[in-house]
């Protein structure tokens, strides 16, 4: 179809807001960040000249303050990812499944209730958890001591592994609503006839979850996993306000390390280099997640598992009885005999 000059320009003008936003808020900051990371750039006095990859070398050279800051905080952040991502996915999925099985009226209510904590600021969340998990006279310690479960108070925010536990619990409570909502929407999209067919075939709840729900929400699960890992990489407020990065800097996150380097040490160049390295690591991890998901998807399509091969074989032997599927695959021998 031939487009007139007018319609071309009209189309261009519609794209301009996106282009401007893309340039101003993404491409220019990224390129500027790369440029800064190649300079001796101080927050106070500005640019002291081009230094090539020196900032990166300083960060990666053992025994420098920047190396210690970066490596310690990277290790801590990875630890947080390992500890927080599984519960953030599993609990949110569990909540979504529970909500999915509630009556419609209650469903809306509980969906709102669980999502509500997501709208609270990290400062308020941290204040609540500091009060709950205070080492000296904190609410949880008081309850545990009164119940006789502990004889002396636990230093929740000052000893490991408790400090991580508090941060992970606070993070789950704070952010679980977002993942849960994504799962609830994904579950809403699952075709109800699949469950009906499975019910007719006498499938157990677990089998329905394993063979219908999980495959149907697979794409959203991968999305949730990737965004949760990225969100966990950005740990800042909780560890800053609940543990101040302690005990002994063991919960100091990458963002905290970059913040200290830029605003504490004044080293905008080094901080930018750290941020870019962090970006590269995040991209690598996300890439690996994509690759594993893609690979397992491909493998699944290409090679059915032994169990599935057996089911398919049985289905072929029994012959088709339904236009949508091979129900014989789920009908046992006894039923076939009756038929």
């Amino acid at each position: 179809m031939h487009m007139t000059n007018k319609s071309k320009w009209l189309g261009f003008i519609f794209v301009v807001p996106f282009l401007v936003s893309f340039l101003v808020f993404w491409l220019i900051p990224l390129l500027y960040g790369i440029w800064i990371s190649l300079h001796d750039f101080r927050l106070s006095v500005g640019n002291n000249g081009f230094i090539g990859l020196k900032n990166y070398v300083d960060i990666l050279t053992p025994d420098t303050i920047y190396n210690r800051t970066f490596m310690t905080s990277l290790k801590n952040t990875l630890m947080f990812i390992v500890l927080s991502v599984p519960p953030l996915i599993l609990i949110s999925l569990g909540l979504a499944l529970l909500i999915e099985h509630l009556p419609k009226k209650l469903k809306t209510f509980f969906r709102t209730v669980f999502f509500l904590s997501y709208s609270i600021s990290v400062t308020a969340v941290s204040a609540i958890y500091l009060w709950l998990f205070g080492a000296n006279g904190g609410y949880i310690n008081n309850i545990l001591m009164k119940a006789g479960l502990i004889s002396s108070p636990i230093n929740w925010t000052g000893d490991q592994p408790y400090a991580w536990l508090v941060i992970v619990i606070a993070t789950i409570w704070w952010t679980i609503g977002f993942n849960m909502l994504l799962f609830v929407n994904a579950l809403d999209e699952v075709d109800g006839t699949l469950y009906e067919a499975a019910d007719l075939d006498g499938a157990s709840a677990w089998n329905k979850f394993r063979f219908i729900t999980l495959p149907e929400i697979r794409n959203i699960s991968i999305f949730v996993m990737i965004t949760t890992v990225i969100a966990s990489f950005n740990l800042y407020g909780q560890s800053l306000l609940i543990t101040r990065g302690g005990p002994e800097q063991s919960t100091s996150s990458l963002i905290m390390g970059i913040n200290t380097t830029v605003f504490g040490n004044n080293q905008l160049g080094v901080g930018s280099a750290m941020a870019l390295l962090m970006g590269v690591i995040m991209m690598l991890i996300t890439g690996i997640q994509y690759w594993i998901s893609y690979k397992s998807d491909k493998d699944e399509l290409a090679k059915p598992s032994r169990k599935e091969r057996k089911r398919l074989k049985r289905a072929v032997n029994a012959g088709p009885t339904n236009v949508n599927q091979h129900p014989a695959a789920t009908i046992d021998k006894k039923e076939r005999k009756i038929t």
Partner: protein
Amino acid sequence: MNMKKIGAAASTGLLVFSLAACSGGDSSSDSGKTQIKFINGFTGGDGAFMTKIVDGFNSSQDEFEVVQSQEKDHYTKFKSGNYDLVVIHETSLETYQKDQLIQDAGPYMETAGLAEDDFNAAGIQSGTVEDKLFGVPLDIHPLTMFYNEELVSEAPTDYEQLKALGETLQSENENLYAFGLPSTGLTTFYFTAAAAQNGIDLAKDGYLDFTQSDYADALMQYHDMVFKDNTSPEKLGLDGEFQAFMKSADEGAKQTAVTMTGPWYYQAVKEKYADNLGIGAMPTLFETAATTGNAHTISVAASVEDEEVKDGISEFLKYLYTPENLANWAESGQTPSHLATLDLITEDPEKYELAAKNQEQLDTYVAAPRVYQFDEQMRYMNEVVFTKLTSEPNLTKDALMSELEKATKAAKQIADTQ
């Protein structure tokens, strides 16, 4: 004009408009007054008192308006924002001067009718860098002792008295202690106190040298206070010295009779203890009496060039350093460095209870070492070393020395970034 040109002009205009929106504005408000953007970190109980002063100035003015921002991370905001006036701690003043973020405050003081003679010696020292006043002295806030008169009738003056108090309290209730040492938080004051009261100078060639045997011995005394003498509970956590003072032993929490903390907690402790609150000078925990802490100064951003803004700053300083106005700051618990205001405080010690008490201990005030990036040089000590001192019963001097070496190495590298 063809469509191509119109499109290009429209998109360029939109880009310019959006970028222009990011640039800083001018110094005039809608009312036509010249605005002075003032940022400070007074987010605690003292914040309302500074706001009262600022509001007083604004209502007295037709020409100028001070726009105040009170931010917890006000240094970060100042470095990345566009402010004219900033409150800077004594320990950071040299860094800000070396980083060319602030300018000589002398001319502003002169226009405001202020001279060095108007301030006490500790105040002048707090604002001076390379023989020039880069910060107008606002206050000194030493480590302040509050005590619960229900548990101790008089302010302990040395460690022996604190130790004896601890033994008495422990015999009554195992949750009662003499005082508390925090794991993190105000630990800089405790580190500088250990140096000052033992006559140790931590500054060496522009960095902090913690690897001095005498200093390690002094720090091990803090360890003994927790694990040998039981004068302080262990593992009190962030701001634990204050938190433990506010707790109740009857509810199963560890409670202290005395706290050595920041004066900014004055409103909170006064609210809790009312007439049972006692205020004392910092006790001698080590060899000699010495008071440590920090000071607030008011600095002018290096970027200030506008003559009207400069006049406004001088006018604000003139208003602020009028005793009746600065007395509001003393009411918050801070001890002003301005002599005329101190005279006013002395006349009414009941109204300015804490400021009146604290000014008595300024004779023994020892300022923290002047090094580039003092707070960053102290970071490892604050975040790691004090936690170890108050949480590891088996910590030895050798193990501590190893940590002090790490802290010194980091401090030296930070000093070298200058």
